[in-house]
């Protein structure tokens, strides 16, 4: 199977840009990353079929046909990416509603250790005698703030 170089480079650039965006803190940028990455992968799948030819059998022009299966798979993948993007957008919006930004939070364990270090240096942020690791938002890490339903 052959493919063409411009195509391969496009896939590479899209995926590289997608990964870079995925590593950002803001959920909106992460979403952009997911979309770029997803499109890169879709093009990669497309190159698994024959590029540039029509996927429709029966035209009978003597030209080679492209493999329709990768195109069908891409359609499915696009639909899934669409749904997931909508969900991520909703999450980013909800996060913005709740805390005013959509940044992904630090690891729970990281925050615990940072809290311990801060306490050791006497930099406790006014929580008084509450032991570090149980301060602020960490208290809620087991989901205590919300309705316990269902």
């Amino acid at each position: 199977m052959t493919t063409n170089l411009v195509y391969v480079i496009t896939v590479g650039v899209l995926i590289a840009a997608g990964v870079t965006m995925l590593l950002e803190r803001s959920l909106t940028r992460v979403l952009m990353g997911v979309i770029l990455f997803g499109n890169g992968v879709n093009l990669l799948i497309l190159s698994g079929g024959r590029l540039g030819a029509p996927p429709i059998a029966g035209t009978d022009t003597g030209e080679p046909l492209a493999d329709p299966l990768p195109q069908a798979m891409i359609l499915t993948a696009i639909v899934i990416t669409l749904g997931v993007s909508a969900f991520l957008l909703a999450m980013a919006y909800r996060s913005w509603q709740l805390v005013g930004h959509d940044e992904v939070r630090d690891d729970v364990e990281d925050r615990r250790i940072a809290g311990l270090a801060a306490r050791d240096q006497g930099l406790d942020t006014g929580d008084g005698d509450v032991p570090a690791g149980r301060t602020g938002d960490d208290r809620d890490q087991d989901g205590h703030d919300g309705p316990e339903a269902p």
Partner: protein
Amino acid sequence: MTYLVPMPVIMPLLAAALTLLLGRRPRLQRAVSVAVLGAVLAVAAALLVLTSRHGPLVVEVGGWAAPLGIVLVADRLAALMLVVSATVTLAVLVYSIGQGMADGEEEAPLSVYHPTYLILSAGVANAFLAGDLFNLYVGFEILLVASYVLLTLGGTETRVLLGTTYVVVSLLSSLVFLTGLGLVYAATGTLNLAQLAGRLDALPEDIRLILQAVLLLAFGIKAAVFPLSAWLPDSYPTAPAPVTAVFAGLLTKVGVYAIIRAETLLFPGGPIAGPLLVLALLTMLVGILGAVAQSRIKRLLSFTLVSHIGFMLFGIGLAGPPGLAAAIFYAVHHIVIQTTLFLAAGLVERRGGTTDMDRLGGLARISPLLGVVFLVPALNLAGIPPFSGFLGKVGLLQAGVADGSPLAWTLVAGGLVTSLLTLYAVARVWDRVFWRAPHAEMPGPDDTVHTVRARAGREPYPDSADHAGAMLPRLMVGPTVALTVVSVALTAVAGPLFELSGAAAADLLERVPYVRAVFPEGAP
């Protein structure tokens, strides 16, 4: 009898639509969900009997013949996993209904809970039955999207913020999987698992290795294999107790199932078994060391979950019939045990008002039954004889000893250390939560859920007039007890179960039954 094969996927999907329509009639909604998941369990049991008698069952979805159309394949492994997953999902559903009924039904998210939960179970079933790599991807996506909704149920601050990690990591794993799919298709021209089995063998060794690595990377994230496991303990504990229980029991095991399929049907042998064993060792040790350091029950259990994925990977990495059989047995055992433990943790949280071990105590005196439903699965997890955890671990260790390589011996030692540390971790929970004198803040016998919540500085449940706010509603305790009984019963049926997983492992390694079931005249 092949019409039974797609039922575990179709029935929950249709029921999901129905329960969505019935959103305003909770009683009917609950009846439909329970009835359908009960039916799925019956179908799964029938499939298990049929496949062990007649070999794998194949359905060509849409009527198109195999390499062109999509097939669903139920072999012994898939049927066994279906039975266990149906048992667990049904029990957890009843538990969540009990919780919902005891707390009042007024909350808005409840109307989406049942449809989403059913879709999750359809996705899990689809992943188990997929005879096609792309269909496996679709199954994963179905269950993942459902799990995103369940994890962020209610859209509260903690769940949205901590759920983000889970969603982003899962998305990344899906994209990696999709990349793998594209590469596999480009290299072989097919995605049908049975056809791939032959065509991948014909590829050059280096290309095979790349494809295998990409797919294992994707499955490894889903199965929470170290170093791809950091997302799990952060995100699972935030969800409602029943959701965490079903995630912990099932979702990682779907990843393990995919690894088993990939390692047996697609890439048997090969140079990756050694690295897999190393990862298994690291997963076991790093996971359990994380668990030992925790002070919250749900987080601690999440770490033990990661740790015990290592045991299954150990069996898969040994790549022989005894190792694989033990891994399958262990997966069955672990699904039941981990779910039970999380359900018990949910009950502890309800009774004690928190999962923080520093603020709990004396629960064994307050509620002996709760003590039993925690202690039995906890000892089982740690591998105390005569429970199934012990038998599974013995199977794995025997397979490791029989293998005899230095790496296998290291893993045997690592497995023993992990078991000991697991025992230490759960004994600490037992000691602090159940055994010692009740903590000053612990609720007394006269407290209700509402006073407990008020004392913890949280909002009481919305409306307390029309329900008692019972501390431990029967419908929540019942499924937990039932799963505990199932987990103990695994010991009683350990002989047949080991035979079954042995037969499943033999089928998997032989590959012929699977391929012949899909292509009776040989793969094209």
